[in-house]
Protein backbone atom coordinates (compact mmCIF):
# COMPACT_ATOMS: atom_id res chain seq x y z
CA UNK A 1 0.00 0.00 0.00
CA UNK A 2 1.15 3.52 -0.66
CA UNK A 3 1.55 5.78 2.34
CA UNK A 4 0.02 9.16 1.56
CA UNK A 5 0.86 12.25 3.59
CA UNK A 6 0.15 15.87 2.73
CA UNK A 7 2.09 19.08 2.48
CA UNK A 8 -0.84 21.47 2.88
CA UNK A 9 -3.35 22.09 5.62
CA UNK A 10 -6.95 23.22 5.27
CA UNK A 11 -6.16 26.94 5.31
CA UNK A 12 -3.53 26.46 2.59
CA UNK A 13 -6.02 24.52 0.49
CA UNK A 14 -8.38 27.49 0.60
CA UNK A 15 -5.68 29.68 -0.94
CA UNK A 16 -6.09 27.66 -4.15
CA UNK A 17 -9.83 28.22 -4.55
CA UNK A 18 -12.34 31.07 -4.71
CA UNK A 19 -16.04 31.18 -3.87
CA UNK A 20 -17.01 31.35 -7.54
CA UNK A 21 -15.36 28.02 -8.26
CA UNK A 22 -17.51 24.99 -8.93
CA UNK A 23 -15.63 22.38 -6.94
CA UNK A 24 -15.57 18.62 -7.07
CA UNK A 25 -13.97 16.72 -4.21
CA UNK A 26 -12.32 13.51 -5.36
CA UNK A 27 -10.90 10.71 -3.24
CA UNK A 28 -9.20 7.40 -3.78
CA UNK A 29 -10.81 4.78 -1.57
CA UNK A 30 -7.77 2.56 -1.26
CA UNK A 31 -4.31 3.61 -0.04
CA UNK A 32 -5.39 7.19 0.62
CA UNK A 33 -8.29 6.01 2.74
CA UNK A 34 -6.01 3.65 4.69
CA UNK A 35 -3.67 6.63 5.13
CA UNK A 36 -6.63 8.40 6.77
CA UNK A 37 -6.50 11.27 4.31
CA UNK A 38 -9.29 10.21 1.98
CA UNK A 39 -12.36 8.02 2.03
CA UNK A 40 -16.06 8.81 2.38
CA UNK A 41 -16.01 10.21 5.92
CA UNK A 42 -13.04 12.51 5.32
CA UNK A 43 -14.53 13.67 2.05
CA UNK A 44 -17.85 14.46 3.73
CA UNK A 45 -16.10 16.38 6.49
CA UNK A 46 -14.10 18.38 3.97
CA UNK A 47 -17.24 19.18 1.96
CA UNK A 48 -19.05 20.41 5.06
CA UNK A 49 -16.12 22.59 6.11
CA UNK A 50 -15.73 24.15 2.67
CA UNK A 51 -19.46 24.76 2.30
CA UNK A 52 -19.54 26.38 5.72
CA UNK A 53 -16.74 28.66 4.55
CA UNK A 54 -18.78 29.69 1.52
CA UNK A 55 -17.38 27.48 -1.22
CA UNK A 56 -19.51 25.82 -3.87
CA UNK A 57 -19.07 22.05 -3.69
CA UNK A 58 -21.03 20.62 -6.59
CA UNK A 59 -20.08 16.98 -6.22
CA UNK A 60 -18.10 14.39 -4.30
CA UNK A 61 -16.57 11.44 -6.07
CA UNK A 62 -15.09 8.31 -4.52
CA UNK A 63 -13.01 6.13 -6.79
CA UNK A 64 -12.13 2.59 -5.73
CA UNK A 65 -8.50 2.78 -6.84
CA UNK A 66 -7.37 6.27 -7.75
CA UNK A 67 -4.26 5.37 -9.74
CA UNK A 68 -5.96 3.46 -12.54
CA UNK A 69 -6.49 5.64 -15.65
CA UNK A 70 -9.36 3.54 -17.07
CA UNK A 71 -11.33 4.05 -13.87
CA UNK A 72 -10.56 7.76 -13.83
CA UNK A 73 -11.53 8.17 -17.49
CA UNK A 74 -14.78 6.32 -16.83
CA UNK A 75 -15.80 9.02 -14.36
CA UNK A 76 -15.23 11.72 -16.98
CA UNK A 77 -17.38 9.88 -19.55
CA UNK A 78 -19.99 8.06 -17.48
CA UNK A 79 -23.54 9.29 -18.16
CA UNK A 80 -24.16 9.76 -14.46
CA UNK A 81 -21.21 12.09 -13.92
CA UNK A 82 -19.92 13.50 -17.19
CA UNK A 83 -22.08 16.65 -17.06
CA UNK A 84 -21.02 17.36 -13.51
CA UNK A 85 -17.36 17.05 -14.44
CA UNK A 86 -17.92 19.21 -17.51
CA UNK A 87 -19.24 22.12 -15.46
CA UNK A 88 -16.67 21.95 -12.65
CA UNK A 89 -13.78 24.40 -12.50
CA UNK A 90 -11.76 22.80 -9.71
CA UNK A 91 -10.99 19.24 -8.71
CA UNK A 92 -9.53 18.73 -5.25
CA UNK A 93 -7.80 15.36 -5.29
CA UNK A 94 -7.18 13.23 -2.23
CA UNK A 95 -4.90 10.57 -3.67
CA UNK A 96 -1.27 9.53 -3.87
CA UNK A 97 1.16 11.32 -6.17
CA UNK A 98 0.48 8.86 -8.97
CA UNK A 99 -3.28 9.17 -8.52
CA UNK A 100 -3.04 12.95 -8.62
CA UNK A 101 -0.89 13.01 -11.77
CA UNK A 102 -3.15 10.57 -13.58
CA UNK A 103 -6.28 12.44 -12.56
CA UNK A 104 -4.73 15.71 -13.71
CA UNK A 105 -4.00 14.14 -17.06
CA UNK A 106 -7.63 13.10 -17.55
CA UNK A 107 -9.26 16.33 -16.38
CA UNK A 108 -7.18 18.76 -18.37
CA UNK A 109 -9.72 21.55 -18.53
CA UNK A 110 -10.01 22.25 -14.83
CA UNK A 111 -7.64 23.20 -12.04
CA UNK A 112 -6.63 20.00 -10.31
CA UNK A 113 -5.31 20.51 -6.80
CA UNK A 114 -2.90 18.04 -5.24
CA UNK A 115 -3.33 17.38 -1.54
CA UNK A 116 -1.69 13.97 -1.05
CA UNK A 117 1.88 12.90 -1.60
CA UNK A 118 3.40 9.41 -1.74
CA UNK A 119 6.21 8.84 0.75
CA UNK A 120 6.72 5.09 0.54
CA UNK A 121 5.14 1.69 1.02
CA UNK A 122 3.13 0.91 4.11
CA UNK A 123 1.44 -1.88 5.98
CA UNK A 124 -2.07 -1.58 7.33
CA UNK A 125 -3.67 -3.32 10.27
CA UNK A 126 -6.83 -2.44 12.10
CA UNK A 127 -5.00 -2.39 15.42
CA UNK A 128 -2.11 -0.16 14.36
CA UNK A 129 -3.48 1.66 11.33
CA UNK A 130 -1.19 2.49 8.44
CA UNK A 131 2.56 2.37 9.06
CA UNK A 132 5.37 3.38 6.74
CA UNK A 133 7.79 0.45 6.34
CA UNK A 134 9.58 1.00 3.00
CA UNK A 135 10.21 4.73 2.54
CA UNK A 136 11.05 6.36 -0.75
CA UNK A 137 14.79 6.94 -1.23
CA UNK A 138 14.17 10.68 -1.46
CA UNK A 139 12.88 10.78 2.13
CA UNK A 140 16.23 9.71 3.60
CA UNK A 141 14.43 7.45 6.09
CA UNK A 142 15.64 3.86 6.60
CA UNK A 143 13.22 0.96 6.18
CA UNK A 144 11.55 -0.28 9.35
CA UNK A 145 9.94 -3.65 9.97
CA UNK A 146 8.11 -2.19 12.95
CA UNK A 147 7.09 0.77 10.81
CA UNK A 148 6.62 4.48 11.39
CA UNK A 149 3.15 5.68 12.35
CA UNK A 150 1.75 8.30 10.02
CA UNK A 151 2.36 10.95 12.65
CA UNK A 152 5.98 9.85 13.17
CA UNK A 153 6.61 9.77 9.44
CA UNK A 154 5.02 13.18 8.94
CA UNK A 155 7.10 14.68 11.74
CA UNK A 156 10.34 13.24 10.36
CA UNK A 157 9.55 14.40 6.84
CA UNK A 158 8.15 17.83 7.67
CA UNK A 159 4.72 16.92 6.36
CA UNK A 160 1.24 16.45 7.76
CA UNK A 161 -0.77 13.29 8.39
CA UNK A 162 -4.46 12.52 8.50
CA UNK A 163 -7.55 14.35 7.27
CA UNK A 164 -7.57 18.01 6.25
CA UNK A 165 -10.37 18.77 8.74
Amino acid at each position, binding site marked *: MIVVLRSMDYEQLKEHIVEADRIILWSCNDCTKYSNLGGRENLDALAKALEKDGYNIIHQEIIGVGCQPPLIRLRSKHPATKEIFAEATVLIVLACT*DGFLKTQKVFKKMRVIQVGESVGLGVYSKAEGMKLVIPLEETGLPPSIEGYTLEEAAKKLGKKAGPLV
Partner: protein
Amino acid sequence: MVCAVQAIPYEKIKDQFKKGERISIVTCNTCTRSQEAGGAKLMEEIAGLLVKDVGVDVVEEIVLTTGCNADYYDHADPSDDVDKILCLGCWAGWTVIKKKFPNIPVVAGVRTLGIPAASAMLKVVAPKEVEL
Protein backbone atom coordinates in the same frame (compact mmCIF):
# COMPACT_ATOMS: atom_id res chain seq x y z
CA MET B 1 -2.25 0.46 -4.51
CA VAL B 2 0.16 -0.45 -7.22
CA CYS B 3 3.85 -0.62 -6.46
CA ALA B 4 6.24 -1.70 -9.19
CA VAL B 5 7.82 -5.11 -8.70
CA GLN B 6 9.99 -7.57 -10.55
CA ALA B 7 10.14 -11.35 -10.19
CA ILE B 8 13.43 -12.75 -8.90
CA PRO B 9 14.76 -15.42 -11.26
CA TYR B 10 13.81 -18.91 -10.07
CA GLU B 11 17.44 -20.04 -9.99
CA LYS B 12 18.21 -17.38 -7.38
CA ILE B 13 15.21 -18.37 -5.29
CA LYS B 14 16.15 -22.04 -5.55
CA ASP B 15 19.62 -21.32 -4.14
CA GLN B 16 18.06 -20.07 -0.90
CA PHE B 17 16.63 -23.46 0.06
CA LYS B 18 18.03 -26.85 1.09
CA LYS B 19 16.76 -30.39 0.83
CA GLY B 20 14.40 -31.37 3.62
CA GLU B 21 13.60 -27.84 4.75
CA ARG B 22 10.03 -27.21 5.79
CA ILE B 23 8.85 -24.07 4.06
CA SER B 24 5.75 -22.00 3.58
CA ILE B 25 5.05 -19.74 0.63
CA VAL B 26 3.07 -16.52 0.89
CA THR B 27 1.92 -14.53 -2.11
CA CYS B 28 0.01 -11.34 -2.73
CA ASN B 29 -2.85 -11.32 -5.20
CA THR B 30 -2.70 -7.64 -6.10
CA CYS B 31 0.40 -5.76 -7.28
CA THR B 32 2.69 -8.79 -7.61
CA ARG B 33 0.09 -10.90 -9.39
CA SER B 34 -0.78 -8.16 -11.84
CA GLN B 35 2.92 -7.84 -12.70
CA GLU B 36 3.41 -11.61 -12.97
CA ALA B 37 5.76 -11.74 -9.99
CA GLY B 38 3.31 -13.51 -7.69
CA GLY B 39 -0.21 -14.87 -7.42
CA ALA B 40 -1.60 -18.34 -6.92
CA LYS B 41 -0.60 -19.78 -10.27
CA LEU B 42 3.03 -18.69 -10.05
CA MET B 43 3.18 -19.81 -6.42
CA GLU B 44 2.02 -23.30 -7.45
CA GLU B 45 4.64 -23.43 -10.17
CA ILE B 46 7.47 -22.37 -7.87
CA ALA B 47 6.31 -24.71 -5.11
CA GLY B 48 6.33 -27.63 -7.53
CA LEU B 49 9.77 -26.76 -8.84
CA LEU B 50 11.25 -26.38 -5.35
CA VAL B 51 9.90 -29.78 -4.34
CA LYS B 52 11.24 -31.38 -7.53
CA ASP B 53 14.58 -29.57 -7.81
CA VAL B 54 15.54 -29.05 -4.18
CA GLY B 55 13.46 -31.50 -2.18
CA VAL B 56 11.88 -29.01 0.22
CA ASP B 57 8.71 -29.85 2.09
CA VAL B 58 6.11 -27.20 1.26
CA VAL B 59 3.88 -27.34 4.32
CA GLU B 60 1.73 -24.31 3.58
CA GLU B 61 0.78 -21.98 0.73
CA ILE B 62 -1.04 -18.75 1.44
CA VAL B 63 -2.62 -16.32 -1.03
CA LEU B 64 -3.38 -12.92 0.46
CA THR B 65 -5.71 -10.46 -1.25
CA THR B 66 -3.15 -7.79 -0.40
CA GLY B 67 0.11 -8.79 1.22
CA CYS B 68 0.55 -5.38 2.86
CA ASN B 69 -2.54 -5.78 5.04
CA ALA B 70 -1.29 -7.48 8.21
CA ASP B 71 -4.81 -8.46 9.22
CA TYR B 72 -5.13 -10.71 6.19
CA TYR B 73 -1.94 -12.54 7.12
CA ASP B 74 -3.08 -12.94 10.73
CA HIS B 75 -6.44 -14.21 9.53
CA ALA B 76 -4.68 -16.87 7.45
CA ASP B 77 -3.29 -18.22 10.74
CA PRO B 78 0.14 -19.02 9.29
CA SER B 79 2.19 -21.84 10.75
CA ASP B 80 5.36 -21.01 12.69
CA ASP B 81 6.56 -24.60 12.38
CA VAL B 82 8.65 -23.96 9.29
CA ASP B 83 12.35 -23.46 8.60
CA LYS B 84 11.91 -20.70 6.01
CA ILE B 85 9.20 -18.64 4.37
CA LEU B 86 9.23 -17.62 0.72
CA CYS B 87 7.50 -14.28 0.17
CA LEU B 88 6.11 -13.65 -3.30
CA GLY B 89 4.93 -10.19 -2.38
CA CYS B 90 6.50 -6.74 -2.37
CA TRP B 91 8.90 -5.64 0.35
CA ALA B 92 6.04 -4.18 2.38
CA GLY B 93 4.48 -7.65 2.38
CA TRP B 94 7.88 -9.06 3.34
CA THR B 95 7.91 -6.85 6.46
CA VAL B 96 4.48 -8.16 7.45
CA ILE B 97 5.88 -11.70 7.60
CA LYS B 98 9.16 -10.64 9.19
CA LYS B 99 7.36 -8.74 11.92
CA LYS B 100 5.17 -11.71 12.78
CA PHE B 101 8.01 -14.25 12.63
CA PRO B 102 11.25 -12.37 13.39
CA ASN B 103 13.21 -15.59 13.97
CA ILE B 104 12.25 -17.35 10.75
CA PRO B 105 14.27 -16.46 7.61
CA VAL B 106 11.99 -14.87 5.04
CA VAL B 107 13.23 -15.13 1.46
CA ALA B 108 12.09 -12.27 -0.77
CA GLY B 109 11.15 -13.79 -4.09
CA VAL B 110 10.12 -10.44 -5.51
CA ARG B 111 12.15 -7.28 -5.96
CA THR B 112 10.37 -3.99 -5.33
CA LEU B 113 11.36 -1.33 -7.82
CA GLY B 114 9.41 1.61 -6.49
CA ILE B 115 6.20 3.56 -6.66
CA PRO B 116 4.98 4.90 -10.00
CA ALA B 117 4.34 8.62 -10.37
CA ALA B 118 2.84 8.95 -13.86
CA SER B 119 5.74 8.04 -16.17
CA ALA B 120 8.41 8.36 -13.45
CA MET B 121 9.44 5.79 -10.86
CA LEU B 122 10.02 6.84 -7.26
CA LYS B 123 12.63 4.47 -5.86
CA VAL B 124 12.23 2.87 -2.44
CA VAL B 125 14.88 1.84 0.08
CA ALA B 126 15.60 -1.89 0.34
CA PRO B 127 15.58 -3.41 3.83
CA LYS B 128 18.72 -5.26 4.88
CA GLU B 129 18.78 -8.96 3.94
CA VAL B 130 15.99 -8.60 1.39
CA GLU B 131 18.09 -8.55 -1.78
CA LEU B 132 19.08 -12.01 -3.04
